[in-house]
């Protein structure tokens, strides 16, 4: 092998604390290295050209680039060596930036360490073999999980792009959190007026199949060929027959159930259509409150239903959907305000969340769009908004900013003034976070035109006195304690990961952070991709986002899916396990431990042998470390390669 080593300065990022020329010079002593040089920016066009030129001039058969992390530019350099005529796997990287130059200032130690890392890379490269990817066909259907605004946008864009889309929604209607909002910032236009048409488009689009009231049960397969089991929960209403007329809701005798769509500040019937614009507009029976289920007799809805759609004996149903890509758009949930006991959320009826307040403002809400406080139905005059309840609070293990609360609170103070002209809003805030087009101007309007009084400081305690709520807090700008007698207290509850998000992430085999938000592939450059091929993210499942950001991500994820499906065949990653059939004794230990069922038992001249199913193998290498005789080897990470790396480091 003729190996060339290229040591990148990365401007001063590496050169600042690593003597790259010395590293290059030292590399020349390693076996089979015939050429070594340092280079300013290996990843730049001239940098890549230099590598290609050297491959041609020096007849190199393998290349080591010492630069940044392979998680960043390995694909870049693999393409470069391929352009020069080498197999793309005849290439290794030494990470001397993230793992060396950026974590220490000692130039001598860094240079020495860099030489070691190049040595490891050279030893691994010497045992690299050309790998040829095989091709497999793609099922050009996409599943979108979650029918909030991000999922709706992703579904519509994919469907408009000609793809078959399967949209899975946990609730009985799509719309997500946005459907619950009255108005949106900073334009104060009506939420359902702008979301409604999109929801209708979903219902009417010939390319979209909607599974509402459904959840993802399990996911098998891999990019291009996923098999997803979707559990369609029993609605006890045959949706083929239900026309959404609502006769059942009028007659249902069980009327006092907390209405989840109205954030439990209003009642609903046991058989229910959550809101007038619901898509699909179909009824669902809640068996935990329905008298037919609880007491065993009632049957009113079955009697009044004009189409005979009521089916009390319905059961959950599993349907299998074969898709080639998945977009996760499962959104967020709200922090449980009852955990902040000093504010009394959950104990005092007039302490509510911002989303509950949104339902009070909404014409389709429980009060018909008149602001009435929950305790006694009176119109509140003094309303206190408390920011960052379950956000930016280490003591509650919620150190992150929920992002959109500052803006919706400003909107709510404006709407409050519109609804009740003689009202006064107070906002206790920590900082006002309003980066976005027309956002800061909007908060100024709330203060200057609508007279909301912003008080910079935290609230210590909320307690009832008579029919008022006393809000005691600090005004840190005035340096005083303040007490406000409020009629209603609205808490800007922080956003947290949707319930069940970690479990879904495990099914999708994607990472999630300690709060349950899904991890993107790269925080800046791959914001809607995940580390699992064929799985994309959109909206707040990745972290709190407002509507325009969520919509943007929905479209971005759709673009990624369309790009993936622009090819009829995908290349499989050839870094998979291969069986040396001579060495295999057919014990099947690899078959037992493979998480993907990617190894099967075959007969070879009357003997049992293991065989890897190429398209199913994901390249984890568990089999390789399980096989005692080393008969199954993960290409590009073979025992010999790792042993060579170990030996490179340990031979004194």
């Amino acid at each position, binding site marked *: 092998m003729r190996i060339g080593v290229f040591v990148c300065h990365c401007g001063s990022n590496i050169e600042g604390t690593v003597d790259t020329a010395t590293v290059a010079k030292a590399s020349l002593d390693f076996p089979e290295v015939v050429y070594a040089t340092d280079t300013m920016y290996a990843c730049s066009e001239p940098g890549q050209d230099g590598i290609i030129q050297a491959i041609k001039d020096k007849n190199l058969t393998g290349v080591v680039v010492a630069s940044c992390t392979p998680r960043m530019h390995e694909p870049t350099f693999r393409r470069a060596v391929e352009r020069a005529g080498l197999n793309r796997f005849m290439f290794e990287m030494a990470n001397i930036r993230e793992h060396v130059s950026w974590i220490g200032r000692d130039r001598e130690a860094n240079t020495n360490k860099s030489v070691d890392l190049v040595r490891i890379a050279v030893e691994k490269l010497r045992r690299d073999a050309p790998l040829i990817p095989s091709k497999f066909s793609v099922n050009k259907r996409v599943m979108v999980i979650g029918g909030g605004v991000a999922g709706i946008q992703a579904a519509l864009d994919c469907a408009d792009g000609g793809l078959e889309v399967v949209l899975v929604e946990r609730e009985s209607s799509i719309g997500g959190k946005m459907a619950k909002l009255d108005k949106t910032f900073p334009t104060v236009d009506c939420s359902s007026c702008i979301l409604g048409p999109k929801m209708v488009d979903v219902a009417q689009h010939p390319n979209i199949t909607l599974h509402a009231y459904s959840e993802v049960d399990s996911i098998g397969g891999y990019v291009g060929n996923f098999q997803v089991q979707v559990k369609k929960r029993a609605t006890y209403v045959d949706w083929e027959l239900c026309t959404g007329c609502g006769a059942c809701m009028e007659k249902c005798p069980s009327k006092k159930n907390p209405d989840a769509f109205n954030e439990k500040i209003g009642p609903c019937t046991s058989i229910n259509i959550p809101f007038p614009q619901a898509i699909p507009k179909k009824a669902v029976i809640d068996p935990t409150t329905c008298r037919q289920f609880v007491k065993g007799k009632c049957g009113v809805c079955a009697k009044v239903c004009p189409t005979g759609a009521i089916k009390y004996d319905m059961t959950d149903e599993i349907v299998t959907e074969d898709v080639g890509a998945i977009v996760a758009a499962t959104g967020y949930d709200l922090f449980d305000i009852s955990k*902040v*006991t*000093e504010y009394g959320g959950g104990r005092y009826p007039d302490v509510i969340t911002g989303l509950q307040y949104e339902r009070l403002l909404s014409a389709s809400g429980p009060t018909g769009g008149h602001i009435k406080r929950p305790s006694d139905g009176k119109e509140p005059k003094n309303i206190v908004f408390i920011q960052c309840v379950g956000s930016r609070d280490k003591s509650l293990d919620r150190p992150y900013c929920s992002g959109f609360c500052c803006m919706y609170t400003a909107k709510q103070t404006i709407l409050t003034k519109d609804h009740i002209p003689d009202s006064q809003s107070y906002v206790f805030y920590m900082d006002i976070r309003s980066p976005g087009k027309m956002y800061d101007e909007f908060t100024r309007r709330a203060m200057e035109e609508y007279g909301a009084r912003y008080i910079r400081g935290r609230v210590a*305690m909320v*307690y*009832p*006195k008579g029919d008022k709520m006393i809000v005691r807090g600090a005004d840190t700008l005035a340096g005083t304690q303040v007490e406000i007698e409020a009629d209603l207290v609205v808490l800007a509850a922080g956003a947290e990961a949707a319930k069940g998000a970690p479990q879904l992430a495990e099914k999708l085999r994607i990472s999630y952070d300690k709060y349950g938000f899904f991890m993107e592939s790269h925080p800046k450059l791959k914001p809607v991709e995940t580390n699992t091929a064929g799985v994309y993210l959109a909206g707040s499942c990745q972290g709190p986002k407002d509507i325009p950001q969520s919509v943007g991500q929905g479209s971005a994820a759709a673009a990624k899916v369309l790009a993936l499906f622009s090819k009829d065949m995908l290349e499989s990653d050839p870094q998979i396990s291969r069986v040396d059939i001579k060495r295999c004794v057919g014990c099947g230990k690899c078959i037992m431990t493979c998480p993907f069922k990617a190894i099967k038992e075959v007969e070879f001249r009357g003997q049992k042998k293991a065989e890897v199913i190429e398209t199913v193998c994901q390249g984890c290498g568990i089999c390789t470390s399980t096989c005692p005789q080393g008969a199954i080897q993960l290409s590009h990470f073979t025992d010999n390669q790792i042993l060579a790396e170990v030996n490179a480091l340990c031979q004194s």
Partner: protein
Amino acid sequence: MSEAIAYYPGCSGLGTSKEYDTSTRAVCAALGLSLVDIPDWSCCGSSPAHTKDHVLSAALAARNLQLVSDMGLKAAATPCPSCLTNLRTANHRCEAAPFKAKVDKLLDDPYAGGVNAVSVLQALTEMVGLDTVKSAVRTPLKGLKVACYYGCIMNRPPELMAFDDCENPMAMDNILAAMGAEVVPFPLKVECCGASYGIPRPDVVAKLSGKLLDAAVGVGADMVAVACPLCQMNLDLRQGQVNRAGGTNFRMPVPYFTQLMAVALNIADEEIGFSKLCVDPRPVLSKALAVAD
């Protein structure tokens, strides 16, 4: 049931809050919780020690904890939240070896560690339990509206006290409800009464305690049950000062929660010690119980 726990009455338990001490002993005896006196116990250091010197304060507390250890017991109960704070703080600080070394230097008998300090309220909740409490009731406190006031340090700081919710504690509410009382939701149950400002700034105490009494009247309480000798003194003994300062006319009885328990358990009057309180709860109590009958 015969669980045993060391008992640390604290200095006030021998003086100003004698009735808290006697009612606590009687109630625990009636409920089968054996309180074992700590021989030769000494002052926990109270507020003066820890405002002056953390090592000294910890040493005073640790001496008592070591005495408990010598008794072969693993836990001590105290009725006084202030003593409790000192005992628990000493334990916490002594987890750091260098600090403990300084403490041990002041002690004849170094603290071996491992003695937990709990409030009587916690001991009753966890060692006796609500079911036992409920089944022991002889005279249910039916019809009596009680506001439970915990004071500001009973559950704070929460990491140190590690019992009940620090903003909305319920232990006393649960016990008195088990005794048959109608426990009214009292929003200021952990607000400050003014504490030891009674001497240097009686105006502060008058204002803060006044607010508490006002809130108790506001929620319709017949009386305010307390668990702290100092709170009791501010709300009861200084009720006259409060009224004078605020132009109010409160006549709010402020018994210890153990005294109300003792009533429900039919314990003798001299052990209940209502006569030691300034606002006598007995008229309100008998009226409420009579109405309920």
